[in-house]
């Protein structure tokens, strides 16, 4: 039986998730990494990805994370990101708007912003199963 540990997902405007979990999987430095109880001290870059949170009761919660950092220390893991949403909070309208903004930025030649927004939009669309 996997033991649990405190985990927090925080964005500048609010704490998106906070509670005891069994495992957290996210994308860092080109590969997926899973944190479980008692992880060695770790600081890493987080890429824009769909994060998998396994709760204490074994159920799974997904969240879209727009890049940031993860820190594991003293059996506590926290992810800080410029913005994040739980899969249940994602709204189709906002995501489609985000995607059109991304397309606009790309057509105006702002590749950096366009690609970033596009990745965020895609992660959310997959999570919330939004299609056109």
């Amino acid at each position, binding site marked *: 039986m996997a033991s649990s540990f405190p985990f*927090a997902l*925080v*964005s*500048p*405007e*609010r*704490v998106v998730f906070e509670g005891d979990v069994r495992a957290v999987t996210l994308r*860092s*430095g*080109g590969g997926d*990494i899973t944190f479980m109880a008692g992880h*060695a*001290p*770790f*600081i*890493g*870059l987080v890429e824009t990805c769909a994060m998998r949170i396994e709760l204490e009761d074994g159920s799974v919660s997904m969240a879209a994370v727009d890049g*940031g*950092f993860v*820190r594991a*220390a*003293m059996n506590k893991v*926290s992810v*800080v990101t*410029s*913005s994040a949403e739980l899969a249940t909070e994602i709204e189709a309208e906002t995501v489609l708007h985000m995607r059109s903004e991304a397309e606009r930025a790309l057509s105006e030649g702002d590749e950096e912003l366009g690609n970033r927004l596009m990745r965020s939009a895609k992660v959310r669309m997959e999570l919330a199963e939004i299609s056109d």
Partner: protein
Amino acid sequence: MAGGQERTLRRKIKSVQSTKKITKAMELIAASRIQKAISRMANARPYYREISEIVRDLVRAASLPKNPYTEPSGSLGVSVVISVTSDRGLCGIYNSSVLRATERLSESLSAKGSKVEIVGVGKKAQNFFKFQEIKVATQVNGVTETPTYVQAMYILGSVLDRYERGEVSEVYIISHRFVSIGVQNLETTQLLPISKEQLEADASKSSGSFDFEFEPSREAIVVPLFRQFTLARLFALLLEASAAEYAYRQRAMKSASENAEELSRRYRRLLNRARQDSITTEIMEIVGGAEALKGGEGLDDRD
């Protein structure tokens, strides 16, 4: 004539009282907004704490990898000054003090030989700099009512890009800090470069040191981390400025309401005196008229 004075005073009292109703309402609105702004500050605190924690760990682990955030390119170049004002007035000296401080800072920076670029936040900054014919590099409105992180990214994003390329050497922000409902201070904060001594002092204060593994590497993390850290600092300052604006407005409106109360009391006293005067005059006229009539009869009698 006396009736005219009374009418004017009555009109004045009425207008002062309706002004008082408005200022009183604004005072109450500001008071409730302060609470909301304070809760926004509280919501942002965990993020700031976590990111500061990561910065501390990074600083403590070993000597910092070379990066533009703590070791700027050296030569004096462009200084960016972010001036945070409100969009609306009626908040006492809130805006004028920021703008005065901005002018002073840009003068002293220019005197040192750096080129000053102003980033205006809020309509009051926009109007002021337009009037003074000072060129503003970027102007962002609609921030201090409810600052969002996206706005913080918008204000600082391009500045940070240029800073990382070495085209900007310092970034200052002039804003009101919110200490408590009763205390707000105008402060000039140097956002960039980040003081290495300060970071190291902070890092040594907290206890507990771990042997962190860094992914992909310390060198690769330091720039994006300081970038987010700087944005988090700006965002925190914007939230404080927002709370401070409402506190200033509440105080300004409170004293305006009190002043209206005082004025209406004074006018009422004048009105009462004017009314008494006119009554006295009328009585005097009647008495005088009666006396005159009586006097006339006396003369008739003698004849």
